[in-house]
């Protein structure tokens, strides 16, 4: 068993904060456990709550290298694990015509002609690594079988070269938007973390950290409005990334407090559907622009 990355949950919080990521209790605890128990961490949640960001912060906080495997429909072994460089092999064969069969075969299937893909890269890396398998739910079911094999033993067998075992177990983080249910077998091997929108206090801290020039009271009212919007049963609820974008917009507009006009004019930054926009405007009573004469 290799040395754990973190000594305590508090240390996780501290070092992630140092890397620019404010972790909730849930995040800090599961990261700590994933590290201690040596299990992959499966992070599920709506788009834009900072799933990928967590991996990035983890890599920075622990001084590891971040290896990322972006999943998509139809991704296969040759994209995820390794591939032989056919073109180069052919060149090698044509360049050395007078070589014997045995020699050529040994040479052509050697390290030089192997194209390592993210999974193999992460396993072979002797230094600390964070392996991010992004949007696992986009990949086909067959791909999960491959992941099971790799994440179970952290070893890969290349028939021509033999078995490659991880010199150092990478910290594995899988993300999923839950567009498809991942297989039970894969889930069973992982710790599960459902990442949801943060509490208002945490979100305020995130926004102030990401947008340094922002006024504290403005940040507070911004988080209140975003919280109200998320409560509204919209087609697309605003994510953390959108709160931050909105904060930047407000800063650029030079707003010092949120009123109906400012919200109405900049709502497009956080709401991406016309119907959501209409609904939010009605529920937040943006149409009742304050008349200075009224009591």
């Amino acid at each position, binding site marked *: 068993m290799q040395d754990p990355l973190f000594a305590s949950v508090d240390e996780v919080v501290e070092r992630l904060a140092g890397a620019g990521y404010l972790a909730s209790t849930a995040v800090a605890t*599961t990261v700590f*456990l994933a590290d201690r128990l040596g299990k992959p961490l499966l992070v599920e949640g709506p788009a834009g709550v900072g799933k990928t960001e967590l991996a990035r912060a983890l890599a920075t906080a622990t001084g590891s290298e971040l290896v990322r495997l972006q999943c998509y*429909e139809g991704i296969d072994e040759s994209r995820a694990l390794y591939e032989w460089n056919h073109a180069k092999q052919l060149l090698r064969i044509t360049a050395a015509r007078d070589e014997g069969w045995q020699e050529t075969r040994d040479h052509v299937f050697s390290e030089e002609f192997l194209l390592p893909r993210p999974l193999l890269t992460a396993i072979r890396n002797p230094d600390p690594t964070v392996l991010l398998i992004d949007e696992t739910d986009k990949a086909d079911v067959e791909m999960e079988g491959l992941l099971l094999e790799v994440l179970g033993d952290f070893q890969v067998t290349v028939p021509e070269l033999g078995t490659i075992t991880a010199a150092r177990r990478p910290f594995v983080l899988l993300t999923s938007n*839950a*567009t498809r249910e991942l297989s039970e077998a894969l889930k069973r091997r992982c710790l599960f973390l*459902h990442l949801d929108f943060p509490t208002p206090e945490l979100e305020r801290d995130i926004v102030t950290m990401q947008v340094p020039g922002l006024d504290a009271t403005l940040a507070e009212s911004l988080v209140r409005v975003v919280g109200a919007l998320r409560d509204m049963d919209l087609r697309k609820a605003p994510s953390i990334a959108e709160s931050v974008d909105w904060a930047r917009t407000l800063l650029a507009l030079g707003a010092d407090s*949120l009123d109906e006009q400012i919200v109405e004019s900049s709502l497009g930054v956080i709401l991406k559907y016309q119907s959501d926009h209409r609904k939010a405007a009605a529920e937040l009573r943006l149409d009742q622009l304050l008349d200075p004469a009224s009591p």
Partner: protein
Amino acid sequence: MTTEVLPARLVDFVGALRERGVEVGPGETVDAAAAVGVLGLADRARLREALASTVLRRSGQRGVFDAVFDLYFPMAVGSAESAADRPSDVYELRDALVAALAEGDEARLRALAAAGVEAFGQYGDVGSGGEGANGTGSKRLSGWSAYQTLGEVRPEALLSRVLAAMRAARPGDGDAGLGAALAEREARSRLTAFREHVQAEARRRTAELRGRERIARHAVASQTDLVTFTSATKEQLAAMRRTIQPLSRKLATRLAARRRRARRGQIDLRRTLRRSLATGGVPMRPVLRERRPGRPELVVLCDMSGSVAGFAQFTLLLTQALADQFSKIRSFAFVGLTDEITDLVSAGRDEPEGLATRILSQARVTRWGMSSDYGESLGSFVERFADALGPRTSVLILGDGRTNYGDPNLGALRLIVERARHVYWLNPEGETFWGTGDSAALRYAKVVPMYECRNIRQLSRLVTELLPG
């Protein structure tokens, strides 16, 4: 809690989760124990997260988990508040509650909920022996009631006072427009939170009295996707509606994946040759020409009468959200007559709450009364909207088949079957009830395949299986 009882407590906890439909295997239990071993028991919030991460496998289970966790790993035993902090009467409690609600002080709200249950929630003979486990005699009829507590404290009546207090605390908000709207939303959601705290507290206290298993079984609500359509409460229906968007995305991906997976067809010579360049001109992996299946047309015919309206409404919204999977969707509703509601449903996408009411008020679905007449409805559908049926149409009929002892009009149904490509009947009633009383379900089931569809889980499985890919 000492470390000796922990394994047993953990196993009981896992058992209670399993009973609520959360599948937890022994492997997960071992993981949970390992996590507790690494983390210790010092911090309750961390313990909760640690157990959640090892035991849960999907997001929808968190609500059930939290409720069961509070039962098995309670924050305290006995009354939660120290006596000094306890309000002496209901007026004092309500004053304290107004202040806590206005500030949004979560810990204080929980404390007040506990105090409220302690003071007003008690019924039966609780006081005599607090430590009893499996209640005998009078104790079985005693406990702590959230309903009684809320009836006494009446938090809803405090709304205007809370709003006034919030206005005083934040003079900048104003009394109209954005600030007021925000304050009101926050106050309401805190009130809901308080009500939930009271319910959790009452459950916890009663659990101490009567043994956890019984309470876990009865008082913790099931997961949304296992809630029965016909008995769902208003809140559960709202929770169901929130699952429509994610669910439709999931179903669409599944349908698309199935279309893609068709492994037959002609070889696409051009693309095969191009791919063969990577393997030195040897076509090792042939490319098949993509088949472009025609997108089917869908007709949804649903019973909008009382008991099954919730189910029909949910399914209508779901098919609407899946609209891009079909070349055309037409929806029809009936109670005593059939009318087309396609436009109402597509308008309902932005505002799904009142769909059923709008359908009943704007479409002509009944001649008189509100009891369903299947015979007349099927007849009028065939008569007026036969043009909706064709060789590419799949028809979904939603209803319980309870004809109020009227003529089931099997002839009209046979006509629909003849005209359409597929007809399926989804019945929100349990299969054991088909054919009982005035239900003509079994007779209809002889003409068209009928499926039991009592909750979201069954519905989403049926949708992927039945809809042509």
